[in-house]
């Protein structure tokens, strides 16, 4: 069986502010309805790339703002516990976030506003993907490439892949599935609650699993 090489992509993301801001949950609902899908992507998914290795308590920008600026930990917890990767596209994610905020306001009210300067600022993003220097033809080369890759490359092949790949899977398990007969490895790579992993932790986890398969199945 001919193995198609895995091409590590390099990835760069820039944020594009829209000038739109929300001071409380009601304003946030209005703004979420009007902004582009790209803005939702930036705050719900791309937030992982910005956090990189940093210690974080909330996985997306909406939850982080609700906790640290609005001091509304109930809605912050609900927004943090939401898994965007179970949805097909950004419009579904947008509806779900609106639903979470709506339910919170129905049950708890939500007229609180932040003080000046602590509003939520809505930003879109421009992303760049291009072929990196590294290619892998087998699992050993894949592991070596992962060790050397930029964290933004890990983001691209995992988090970004879910919004790009048909079947909503990451690039790495997709490549292994289509080039090697290793269903156990594919299952392990897809079995994590990766939304809560930092990019560094995710990289280390993948490498650990690959190491486990290397001596037995490849050599």
């Amino acid at each position, binding site marked *: 069986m001919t193995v198609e090489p895995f091409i590590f992509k*390099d990835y*760069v993301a*820039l*944020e*594009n*502010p*829209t*000038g*739109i*801001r929300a001071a409380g949950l009601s304003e946030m609902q209005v703004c979420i309805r009007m902004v582009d899908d*790209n803005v939702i992507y930036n705050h719900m998914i791309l937030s992982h790339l910005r956090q*990189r*290795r*940093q*210690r974080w308590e909330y996985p997306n920008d909406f939850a982080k703002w609700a906790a*640290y600026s609005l001091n509304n930990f109930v809605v912050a917890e609900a927004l943090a516990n939401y898994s965007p990767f179970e949805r097909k596209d950004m419009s579904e994610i947008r509806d779900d976030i609106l639903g979470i905020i709506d339910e919170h306001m129905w049950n708890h009210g939500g007229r609180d506003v932040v003080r*000046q*300067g602590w*509003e939520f*600022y809505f*930003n*879109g*993003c*421009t*992303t*760049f*993907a*291009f072929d*990196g*220097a590294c290619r892998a033809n087998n699992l050993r080369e894949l592991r070596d490439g992962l060790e*050397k*890759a*930029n964290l*933004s*490359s890990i983001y691209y092949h995992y988090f970004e892949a879910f919004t790009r790949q048909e079947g909503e899977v990451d690039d790495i398990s997709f490549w292994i599935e289509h080039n090697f007969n290793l269903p156990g490895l594919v299952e392990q790579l897809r079995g994590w609650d990766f939304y809560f992993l930092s990019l560094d932790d995710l990289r280390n986890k993948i490498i650990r699993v690959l190491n486990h398969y290397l001596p037995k199945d490849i050599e």
Partner: protein
Amino acid sequence: MKNNGKRNGIEAYAPLVGEPVVALIRKLAARLRGARVLNINSTREGGGVVEILGRLVPLARGLGIDMRWETIQGTRSFFATTKKMHNALQGNQVNFSERELQYYEQVNRDNLDRIDMDVDYVIIHDPQPCPLVQYIPEGVTKIWRCHIDLSRPNRKLWRYLREWVKQYDASIFHISAFAQQLPHKQFLIPPSIDPHSVKNRPVPSKTVRTTLMRYGIDPQRPVILQISRYDRFKDPIGVIEAFLMVRKHYDCQLVLAGEQAADDPEGAQVYEEVREMADKHPDVHALMLSRENNHHKVNCLQRAATIIVQKSIKEGFGLTVTEGMWKAKPVIGGAVGGITAQITEGLNGYLVNSVDGVAYRCRYLLTREKRMKEMGRAAKKSVLERFLITRHLSDYLAMLLAVKHPARTMIEL
């Protein structure tokens, strides 16, 4: 110096940020090889913009991009008006006469003959040269780079300036809070520091000690330090008031140190007020740093500091915060502008909102040596990840590519 090219080029950063980051920058630069990029600001002396351009321009040139840097020239009265503008854009209630605004535009027009704009991109920094946009030739990509806190600008002045800003193809802000509703694409690019610069590279402890003694600062006692221009927005008087509260409980010293930027005529007056207050207290040192070797002095003072304070009440970004964090110091910063983007409360520093806040956090930290060390380590790590010149350069290169495709959000290269 041996091997000068390698020391000054992008390779010099690989041991700090990693080879993959440097490789990524090279790839982005390759897409822009030969592009002619002109930066225009209003001074070559003093301030964060000068430090950044002083490093970004040679790095970009080393990567094959024809990047240049020019400054506009103005009179004292022009800079008095632009300083007033700076204050108004940061929220002060100031009125401008028709004559002042006309003169502002005229000085920009007068600079035209001095600047060759036969380039692919022009990046105009801050409000001083903003009206130059009308003279940039057709086909050149025009970018406005704002380095100041524009979160609550004086409405009248912003309405005037917005007419110029609208004519650009894109604008760049430090943080989201400064962005405005504009008819073109905006980018967020926080500024950065250069870890290899005279201001940030490692210094032997003996040199640090000698510098302290030269200024009459006791190396044996804790030092609370604020480095910044003498500017009311940096609230040096508030820092002295906070220090006097701390001094009642701890035998420590306060050092305020700054230099005079060429485009800030108000600085000398503020310095006089600060010095008058400082002269009444033997443990308060208000230093006006001379241009000569001042970056080295700042480096030594920051390394000698026990705690670094930046009690700004408005702040574009606060590179002195970044510098302090890079030196693994606990930083207490005003909860404003770009400082909030750098300090995560309690993790890598503290954000404060008042004179009492500064005093309280100084006293809190002075009793917790271990906490200060942990905080300093976290601070250095966050600068390494987010605020070094390599990230800045990478963002700039990506922005130059993105601005040519304003409608696209995903660009495959």
